[in-house]
């Protein structure tokens, strides 16, 4: 099983012996942080209490959901500490490009949230392509690239679904 460290976001491979009663307790191989992460199919709220970083399962579900949505050029997850987590953007964009995009969009939304704490989403509309940032928790955002503005009904619905599922993690 692959789990991400709550502190540094590094990927850790966890053996079955480290999972007891739907809970994995492991020390991160990079930062040595002691993690205690729920792995079972508990409620979303229960999972939220143990992690602010999307688990590998969450990421997979998110990727599968977004891949089914037509009209998206690509998407990636960006963590404020560890940078790009899941990259499904067109190959023409280098990893460094995505790091810059992620940092800029997240710093924009953070700065504006000081003044307007109810900000939920950011659109960057550039001729021919648009970037949408949807924060999925305090430290992690989903960045989607698409050609159309505004989003189609299905794209909007999917983004809302993603947002709701993850906002409730912090309830």
């Amino acid at each position: 099983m692959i789990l991400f460290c709550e502190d540094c976001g590094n990927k850790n491979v966890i053996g079955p012996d480290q999972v007891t009663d739907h809970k994995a307790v492991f020390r991160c191989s990079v930062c040595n942080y002691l993690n205690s992460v729920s792995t079972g199919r508990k409620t979303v709220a229960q999972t939220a209490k143990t992690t602010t970083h999307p688990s590998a399962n969450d990421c997979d579900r998110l990727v599968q959901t977004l891949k089914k949505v037509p009209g998206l050029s690509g998407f990636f997850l960006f963590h404020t500490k560890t940078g790009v987590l899941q990259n499904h953007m067109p190959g023409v964009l280098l990893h460094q490009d995505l790091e810059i995009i992620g940092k800029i969009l997240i710093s924009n939304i953070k700065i504006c949230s000081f003044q307007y704490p109810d900000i939920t989403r950011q659109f960057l509309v550039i001729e021919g392509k648009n970037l949408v940032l949807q924060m999925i928790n305090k430290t992690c955002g989903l960045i989607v690239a698409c050609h159309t503005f505004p989003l189609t009904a299905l794209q909007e619905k999917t983004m809302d679904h993603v947002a709701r599922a993850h906002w409730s993690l912090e309830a």
Partner: protein
Amino acid sequence: MIHIARIEGVKHYILVDHNQQVIVHNLKDYRRIGAMICFCGLQSYALGKSRLKFLIFERKNHNDLFIFPVGNYYLGVIKHKTIGAVELTHNVLAFLNELVSNRPDKNLH
């Protein structure tokens, strides 16, 4: 530029230059918001360059914040909750295009 207030859907507006200098506004906390708009505008310009059209921050109360690059300035607009984002952007972009085309020196672009 003050005519921006008459555009349908515009609740508040603020025009700042690249040095966070507020040129015109109808906001209370204009210094802070001006600095914020300038910061976001400059950051986003780094991504979109001259092809950057606008930036939107959606809010739960639907008074979304829009930032439009206008030459060496950034125009911040807070929309009324009753108007859609597409309609507002259409109205503001039409206003800006008209403004630029009517200026004799056309120094906004």
